[in-house]
C-alpha cells in the first residue's frame, strides 16, 4: 500500500521526524517498509539563477558558455548544452556539492578546455516530473539565489506491506492513528459533517442477502457536473500513484485511501427503480467495468436494480454499464459493509480484485461506513456541485465485531518475562484506542476486530513495547535423541563417506517431468497408477512427484556434460514418492540414496591411467560405503536400463543397480557409460550399525594356495563363489579372485573359455596347519569346483 507523507501529515504532526525514524517506527510496529521514494527536490543547493550571457563554446558546436547570476555577488560560468532558453530567463542552477537524484554530485569541471562551475538543470534532472525538452524555465518573478526546492512541493511515498490481520491500517487515517500511538502524539480531529439518516423503506433499497451485506447505505446526489477534479484532489491521488479520472470517481478513491472505506457511485439514470442487494442466480452473467465477463454462483453478491439488472459485483467491482460517465447528472452513492469471507470467495472465483475487495475481504470498520459516506457527500458537492438528498438511507445495521477482552496480569507477566507493568501495558492499550471497562477488562474499538482474545491484547502490548525491552533467557533441558536423530546421524556418516570417496552431493527438485520417468530406477518397478501427479503443475518439467532420484541425477549429469565436465561422480539423498497400489492405496514417502558414476575415473593428468568408469567402480564405491562389507549384484531386468541388478547384502535386497541403456546415453549426448544405483536408506542405516564386540585376532598363521581354473566364459563369478561357499570347508577363511584372463582371438585360450585365478587362504584357530592339512583342504575345494562346475585347473 502506498502512503503519501504529505497526505499523512494532514492527520498528525510529523514535523521533526526524519524518514529513517519513520521507517524504524513502522518496521517495529510490524509494518514492513518495502520502499521509500522521495519526490521533488531534496537539496538546497539547487538555486534560482538568471542567465546573463550565453556565447558559443569555442571547442564544441552544441555547447554554449553561459554566465549566470545565482545571487552570489559574482557571476558563475557554466557550460550548457540546452537550446530552449533565452538570455534573461531564470533556471535552476545546481551548485557544486548538490546531490542530484541520478546519484551523482555536481562538481567544478573543465568541459573541452572551458571551466564550468555547476549545472543548469532540466526538471527531470532535479527530481521533478519531466517537462519540455531542455532547461526548466522558472517564472520571471522567481527570486534569484533562492532554493528551487521551496517553489515545488516535495513528498515522500512510503510503500508499505500491511499484514492481513491489520485492515485498519489500509488508509492514511488508519496509518496516522497507528503512528500517533507509537509517537504518543495527538491525532488531528477528523471533520465529518453531520447528516441525517433514515431507514431504507420499500422501493429505494432492499437487501435480500443480509448475512452477506448486514449494512448498506445509499444517498442520492442530483445535478452533479462530472469533470476533472480540482488540482488538490488530483495531486493527492497522483501522489500515491493513482490516475485521476473524474471528480466523482476521484472522491470515492480519495475516501478509500483517506478512511479505508470503499464507496461506489452509480449513475442513477441507468437504474430501473431502487437498489436490490441479492445473491446472483446460479449461472447469471456479469460484465465488469474492465470488460471481463463472469458466470456467477449463488454465493456471489450482486448490487442490482429492481428489473434485476446487475449493477455491480458487491464489494468487488462495478458493472460495465452502471458507472459514472461524463453525461451523468444524478448519482447514487453506496457505502456498505460486506461480510469478508464472501468477498474473498467471489474475488478468488472470478479472479477480480480491486482496492475495494482488498479492504472488504480483510474487514473494514463497520462504524466508519456512514462517516465515509457523509464526507464523500461533502466533497462531491464541493467538486461537482448538485444537491444531496437530505437523508442517507440505511438498510440493516453496523455489525458489532468487537467485545470486551481481559488482560490478565499473571499471564502478561509470564509471557513478557515481567518486563512491563500492567499500568504501562494499559497505557499502550489506551493509546491504541481501547477503553478500560473494569480492572482487567477492555473494550476494543470497532476498527480493531482482530483483537478478540487475551493473547491478542498481549500481542499488542508486546508489539508496541518492543521485544528489545524483553529480557533474553535460555534454559536448556535434557532431550533424548529421537529415531529421526539416529537416522540423521547415519545419513551424515553416509554423506561424508561418499564425499570422501570423491562424489559430489546433489540436490534436485522432487517434481520431475513425464519425459524423465524412463530414467527412474525405483526400488520396486512401478505399476500403472503408482505415480503421484500434482493437479496444476507450474510446467511440464515439474509435473510428477519423483518415484526415484536417478532421473534428477541423470539430468544433472547432462547439464554438467554440456558444461564440459569430464568425470561425473554424484549422489543425492532424499525422499521418493509413489502410491502403494496403483493409485488406490496410500501415498508412500520413502528415503533413498542414489549414485551416478560416469566418465573418466579421476581427474586427467600427466600420470593418469585414463580409464573410463565401469560398473566395478560403482560396485566398489558401494562396498566402501558399507565399510568394506561385500554386496552381490543379482541380475534383474529393468526397462530402460542394461546390466540391471538387485543389490544384495547377504540375503537382503538393499537397492537397484544398472547402466543407462546405451541408446539413452546417446540420446542424452552423455558420451560415456552411465552407471547408477538407488538404495533403500532405511536398510543402509541399519547396515551401518556398529559392531557388538570385536573378534579376537588369529593366534596361528595360515597358508595361501593359488589356483587358476578354466571354465566357459559365460559362467558368472557368482557361481564359483556359491560353490566355494557351499563346500563349507572349515579351514578355508577366504577366497579372492585375483586374475581374469580371456583371449577373444582364441590363440592362448579358446575364445569361449576364460581363466579365473583365485587365492585361497586356509587357517585354523587352534593350531598351526601342516602342509598336508592345507593341501588336503585345498584339494577338497578344488575337487568340489570340478564336480559342481566342471572347471579345469591348469
Amino acid at each position, binding site marked *: 500500500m502506498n502512503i503519501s507523507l504529505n497526505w499523512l501529515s494532514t492527520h498528525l504532526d510529523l514535523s521533526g521526524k526524519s524518514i529513517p525514524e519513520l521507517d524504524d517506527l513502522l518496521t517495529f510496529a510490524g509494518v514492513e517498509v518495502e520502499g521509500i521514494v522521495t519526490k521533488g527536490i531534496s537539496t538546497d543547493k539547487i538555486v534560482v539563477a538568471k542567465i546573463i550571457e550565453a556565447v558559443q563554446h569555442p571547442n564544441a558546436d552544441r555547447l554554449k558558455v553561459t554566465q549566470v547570476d545565482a545571487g552570489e555577488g559574482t557571476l558563475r560560468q557554466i557550460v550548457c548544452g540546452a537550446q530552449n532558453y533565452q538570455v534573461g530567463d531564470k533556471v535552476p542552477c545546481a551548485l557544486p556539492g548538490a546531490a542530484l537524484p541520478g546519484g551523482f554530485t555536481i562538481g567544478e569541471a573543465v568541459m573541452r578546455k572551458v571551466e564550468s562551475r555547476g549545472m543548469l538543470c532540466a526538471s527531470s534532472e532535479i527530481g521533478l516530473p519531466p517537462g519540455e525538452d531542455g532547461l526548466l524555465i522558472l517564472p520571471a518573478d522567481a527570486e534569484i539565489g533562492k532554493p528551487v526546492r521551496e517553489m515545488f512541493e516535495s513528498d515522500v511515498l512510503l510503500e508499505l506491506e500491511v499484514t492481513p490481520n491489520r485492515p485498519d491500517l489500509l488508509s492514511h487515517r488508519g496509518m496516522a492513528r497507528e503512528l500517533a500511538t507509537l509517537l504518543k502524539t495527538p491525532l488531528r480531529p477528523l471533520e465529518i459533517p453531520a447528516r441525517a439518516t433514515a431507514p431504507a423503506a420499500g422501493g429505494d433499497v432492499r437487501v435480500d442477502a443480509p448475512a452477506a451485506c448486514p449494512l448498506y447505505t445509499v444517498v442520492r446526489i442530483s445535478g452533479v457536473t462530472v469533470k476533472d477534479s480540482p488540482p488538490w484532489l488530483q495531486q493527492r491521488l497522483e501522489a500515491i500513484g493513482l490516475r485521476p479520472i473524474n471528480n466523482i470517481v476521484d472522491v470515492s478513491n480519495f475516501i478509500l485511501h483517506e478512511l479505508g472505506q470503499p464507496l461506489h457511485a452509480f449513475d442513477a439514470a441507468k437504474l430501473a427503480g431502487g437498489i436490490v442487494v441479492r445473491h446472483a442466480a446460479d449461472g447469471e452473467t456479469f460484465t465488469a467495468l474492465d470488460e471481463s465477463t463472469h458466470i456467477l454462483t449463488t454465493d456471489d453478491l450482486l448490487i442490482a436494480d429492481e428489473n434485476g439488472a446487475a449493477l455491480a459485483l458487491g464489494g468487488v467491482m462495478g458493472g460495465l454499464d452502471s458507472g459514472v460517465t461524463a453525461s451523468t447528472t444524478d448519482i447514487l452513492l453506496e457505502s456498505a459493509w460486506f461480510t469478508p469471507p464472501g468477498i474473498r470467495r467471489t474475488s478468488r472465483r472470478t479472479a477480480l480484485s480491486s482496492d475495494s475487495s482488498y479492504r472488504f475481504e480483510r474487514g473494514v470498520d463497520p462504524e466508519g461506513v456512514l462517516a465515509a459516506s457523509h464526507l464523500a457527500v461533502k466533497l462531491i458537492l464541493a467538486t461537482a456541485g448538485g444537491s444531496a438528498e437530505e437523508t442517507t438511507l440505511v438498510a440493516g445495521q453496523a455489525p458489532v465485531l468487537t467485545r470486551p477482552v481481559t488482560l490478565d496480569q499473571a499471564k502478561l507477566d509470564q509471557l513478557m518475562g515481567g518486563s512491563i507493568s500492567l499500568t504501562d501495558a494499559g497505557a499502550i492499550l489506551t493509546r491504541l484506542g481501547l477503553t478500560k471497562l473494569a480492572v482487567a477488562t477492555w473494550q476494543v474499538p470497532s476498527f480493531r476486530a482482530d483483537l478478540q482474545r487475551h493473547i491478542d491484547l498481549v500481542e499488542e502490548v508486546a508489539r508496541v513495547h518492543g521485544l528489545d525491552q524483553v529480557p533474553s533467557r535460555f534454559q536448556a533441558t535434557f532431550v533424548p535423541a529421537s529415531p529421526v536423530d539416529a537416522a540423521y546421524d547415519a545419513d551424515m556418516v553416509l554423506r561424508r563417506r561418499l564425499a570422501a570417496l*570423491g562424489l559430489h552431493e546433489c540436490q534436485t527438485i522432487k517434481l520431475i517431468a513425464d519425459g524423465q520417468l524412463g530414467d527412474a530406477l525405483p526400488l520396486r518397478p512401478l505399476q500403472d497408477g503408482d505415480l503421484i501427479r*500434482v493437479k496444476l503443475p507450474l510446467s511440464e518439467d515439474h509435473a510428477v512427484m519423483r518415484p526415484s532420484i536417478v532421473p534428477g541425477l541423470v539430468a544433472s549429469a547432462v547439464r554438467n556434460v554440456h558444461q564440459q565436465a569430464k568425470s561425473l561422480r554424484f549422489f543425492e539423498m532424499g525422499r521418493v514418492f509413489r502410491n502403494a497400489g496403483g493409485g488406490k492405496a496410500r501415498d508412500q514417502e520413502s528415503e533413498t540414496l542414489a549414485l551416478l558414476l560416469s566418465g573418466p575415473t579421476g581427474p586427467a593428468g600427466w600420470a593418469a591411467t585414463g580409464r573410463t568408469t565401469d560398473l566395478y567402480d560403482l560396485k566398489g564405491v558401494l562396498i566402501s560405503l558399507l565399510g568394506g562389507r561385500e554386496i552381490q549384484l543379482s541380475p534383474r531386468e529393468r526397462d530402460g536400463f542394461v546390466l540391471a541388478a538387485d543389490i544384495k547384502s547377504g540375503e537382503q535386497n538393499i537397492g537397484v543397480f544398472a547402466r543407462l541403456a546405451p541408446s539413452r546415453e546417446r540420446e542424452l549426448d552423455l558420451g560415456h557409460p552411465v552407471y547408477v544405483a538407488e538404495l533403500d536408506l532405511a536398510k543402509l542405516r541399519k547396515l551401518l550399525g556398529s559392531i557388538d564386540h570385536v573378534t579376537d585376532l588369529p593366534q596361528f598363521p595360515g597358508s595361501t594356495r593359488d589356483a587358476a581354473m578354466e571354465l566357459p566364459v559365460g559362467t558368472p563369478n557368482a557361481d564359483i563363489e556359491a560353490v566355494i561357499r557351499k563346500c563349507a570347508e572349515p579351514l578355508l577363511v577366504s577366497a579372492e579372485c585375483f586374475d581374469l584372463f580371456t583371449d577373444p582371438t582364441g590363440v592362448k585360450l579358446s575364445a569361449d573359455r576364460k581363466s579365473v585365478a583365485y587365492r585361497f587362504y586356509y587357517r585354523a584357530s587352534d593350531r598351526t596347519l601342516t602342509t598336508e592339512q592345507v593341501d588336503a583342504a585345498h584339494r577338497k575345494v578344488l575337487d568340489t569346483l570340478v564336480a559342481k562346475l566342471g572347471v579345469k585347473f591348469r
Partner: protein
Amino acid sequence: MNESIGSIQTAALAQIAAATDVRTLDDARVAVLGKKGTLSLAAAGIKEVPPQEKAAFGQLLNAARTAITAALAEKQAALREQADRAALAGIDLTLPARRVPVGSLHPLTLIRDQAIGILRRMGFALADGPEIEDEFHCFDALNTPADHPARNEKDTFYFDSGKLLRTHTSSVQIRTMESQPPPLRIIAPGSAYRRDEIDATHLSAFNQLEGLYVDREVSLPDLKGTLEYFFREMFGTSTEVRFRPHFFPFTEPSFEIDVKLQIKGQTPRWIEVAGCGMVDPAVFESLSQSRKDQAYDPEQVTGFAFGMGLDRLAMIRWGIKDIRLLIENDVRFLKQFA
C-alpha cells in the same frame, strides 16, 4: 715388519677409495680384515716380533685397523647416499599430483548440519513428517482460515486425492504434538513447496528448518534468548539480532528476525532470516480436540515456534546470488564446498 703394516694400510685405503659399490667395498674389507686378509695375516705375525717391539708393533697395528675401519664406514655411508640419490634420479617434485577424486557435501547439507548442530546442543531433538500432507495438518490445525490465500490452487500444489504438498514444515509441529505430550523441544528440517515460478530468488521447492518448544511457562524471553543465541552461533558471536513484529496465523505474538550482516564490499545491513512467535492458543485448542485430552490445554502450556529458509541462509552465508545454483548441481559450483 713395521714397513709392511704401513704398506698394507696404504694399499687397503687405496682399495677402499677405489670401491664403486657395496660389493667391491665388501671385497676390499675381506681383503684386508677378513680371516686371510692382509692385516689379519700381519697381526698373526706378532708372535715373531721381539718382545721389546711388541708394544710398538701392536700400536701400529691398531692404528692401521682404526684407520681402515673408519675409511670403510665412511665409504659405506658415501656409497649408500650415492645409491639413494641414484634411485631418485629424474624424479621431479614439481610435477602435478596424481589426483584422487575429491567429493563434496552440498551447501544445503552443510548449512543444515551447522544449524542442527547448534540446536541440538541447545537441547532440541529432530522430528519429521510427510511432504504430501493433508489440509488439516498444513492449514486447519495451524489456525489458517478456510479461505486463506495460501490455500489457493494457484499458490499451493494439490493432488487429486485432495492432499497437497506442504507449504511449510510447520505441519510437523502438529504431527509431533499429536503423538507426544509436552514438554517438547523439536526441530524439523525438510522440504516445503509453493507454486512460485522459478527465478533467481524463488524455487517452487525449498528447504526449511522448523523449531518448536512447548512446556509450562515458555515465554517471550525464552524465544528471544534461544533465537539470539542460535543466530550468534550461526553468524558470529557479535552478530546483532532484531525482532520485528509480524503476523502468522499460528503464532501470536509473531516476529520476523533480522540479523545485521556485512556482505563483502557492502555496508552492513539488516537481513531477514527467520519467522517466529508464541504458539497461538487456537493451535493448542485444535490439538486438544484431535488428541481428545488436555495435555496441551492452552491454559496450562505455552510454546514458541520458529522457521527459517535454509536456502536463504546458504545464500547469505556464501554470497550465492542465484538460488537456482542450489539445484543445478554444476560441478564447478559444488566443488567449491569440498
